[in-house]
């Protein structure tokens, strides 16, 4: 297993860890943090597999995709945080209320 595969597996691991935390944690800020970790994991998978390119230069297209992804992630995070604060000011709690099961 070379370095690229090691980092790719790490990315997968981060995604799985984030997924678990997303399911288990109830606090909205923790969920948003979990999404960021999952995103980092997905980007790491993409970038690590780009490292498989031979010679000195890694494949730049996945790098561009990751940069785009990082910017999209910060935009979504910023919006999610503002929404979370509104939810707290309306319901008094930074949790989603229990949904009546349908």
């Amino acid at each position, binding site marked *: 297993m070379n370095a690229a595969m090691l980092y790719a597996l790490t990315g997968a691991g981060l995604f799985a860890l984030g997924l678990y935390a997303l399911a288990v944690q109830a606090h909205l800020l923790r*969920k948003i943090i979990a*999404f960021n970790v999952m995103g980092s994991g997905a980007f790491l998978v993409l970038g690590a597999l780009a490292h498989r390119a031979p010679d000195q230069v890694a494949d730049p297209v996945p790098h561009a995709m990751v940069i785009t*992804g990082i910017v999209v992630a910060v*935009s979504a995070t910023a*919006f999610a945080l503002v*929404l979370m604060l509104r*939810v707290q000011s*309306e319901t008094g709690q930074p949790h*989603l209320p229990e*949904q009546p099961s349908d």
Partner: protein
Amino acid sequence: MGTLSPDSPWTIWVIFSPLAGAVFTFLWPRRARLAVPLVALGTVGSVACLVWQVAELGVQSHALGGWAAPLGINLYADGLSAMMLLTTALVGAAVTFYATEYFRRASETARYFWPLWLCLWTALNALFLSWDIFNLYVAFELLGLAAIALVALAGSADALTGAMRYLLVSLLGSLTYLLGVALFYSTYGTLDIGLLGDLTAPSAASWAATGLMVAGLLLKTALFPLHFWLPPAHAAAPTPVSAILSALVVKASFYLLLRLWLEVFPVTAAGLGHLLGLLGALAIVWGSLQALRQTRLKLLVAYSTVAQLGYLFLAFPLALSPVAATAWSASVFFILSHALAKAAMFLAAGNILRFAGHDRIAELGRAPYGVSLSWAAFGVAGISIIGLPPSVGFAAKWLQLEAALAGGQWWWTLPIVGGGLLATAYVFKIISCVFSQNGRTSGTNGISWRMEWTAFGLSLAALGIGFAAPQLLALLNSGTPLALHEVGSAP
């Protein structure tokens, strides 16, 4: 008609008219009343030109930046894209017209409706034209963020929690989809749908990528049992937003699922198709039963959406037979009919809600004379939802029944027909309010004629476009999008 006409400028105008409008209405909110009709006209006009081009000249494309795939991003418009763009333009124009009246009393938050809605329209158009799987991810993020912000505009606790739940689901779906993109690119070295179609073969990585993308898109399309987020969000949103969400936004992820299924995913196993069909049938039954149980009008309509989305997925097992094209055409017709009818229903429900001050079905009672046209819109839209002739809903169901019987999978006729009966029940539940003796003569808010006629007009469209079914079928087949992509054949 399979000839590729490159570099159509209309593909660009379709995307950038609403986007330019969004930037403009953000910079000059006071001029919004003037700018919005122009932007809407420009967008609808561009869509009309593009649809005409696709119908007459075949597939349109545009190599952005002058770079062909795999290096650059392509836009691609065939019959399927044209149908989606057409649906979006019809509902979008109607909702824009409705919203100019709905937000007449410009409040602080109402000013933000226009940039958000126009960004959403941009995202939809960009999605239907994009031929690059990573570009589709960015378009989905644009779509999701705009939709969620629009839900939250309502400001109530229900709307905010509904929006938050929607956000969590949307982000999860997007990230799962992105992981699928990473796997596809790392295996085949390209992001172009056409090239991927030629290259994908069954392998561990492509199967994993397929699974991830399907899971992400199912979350976004709210297929049973992943539908839990949809009713609260769609019901609590402001009225025009509910219409946009149910009619258009949930269809976007279904469109992508369909597109990838036809073009990219490696030889798709029958098992997955049957599973999707089964979930679709369950959605029809469960959604309709839940709709019958609801006491609030908008929630009923939202659960109806959950049920109707189930019909779309029946195409997957039905297409595992020689009559595949019929089954897929049925789904596209369902998209069109449901978009028009559901938008009509939500706009009508919104009128009734504003008139009566509440939407508790039991008390909506007598003397709905102030909004009688909205009740009529409900009824006419219901015809399409139930699937009676001559509506497009009927055309769609007819195609599906034909596919089921011709393909030898007769058991799928049960949910199709059963769903129609259940839909009759909940539509009747709403209409019976008109004749009930409960409730007081309530309602002091005048509902403008524009709002009522938009709802009624959409319901009439759902009814009347059925007459154009043959022409629409011809449009849909431009570029043969519904034939399963054979490895090695040219796009």
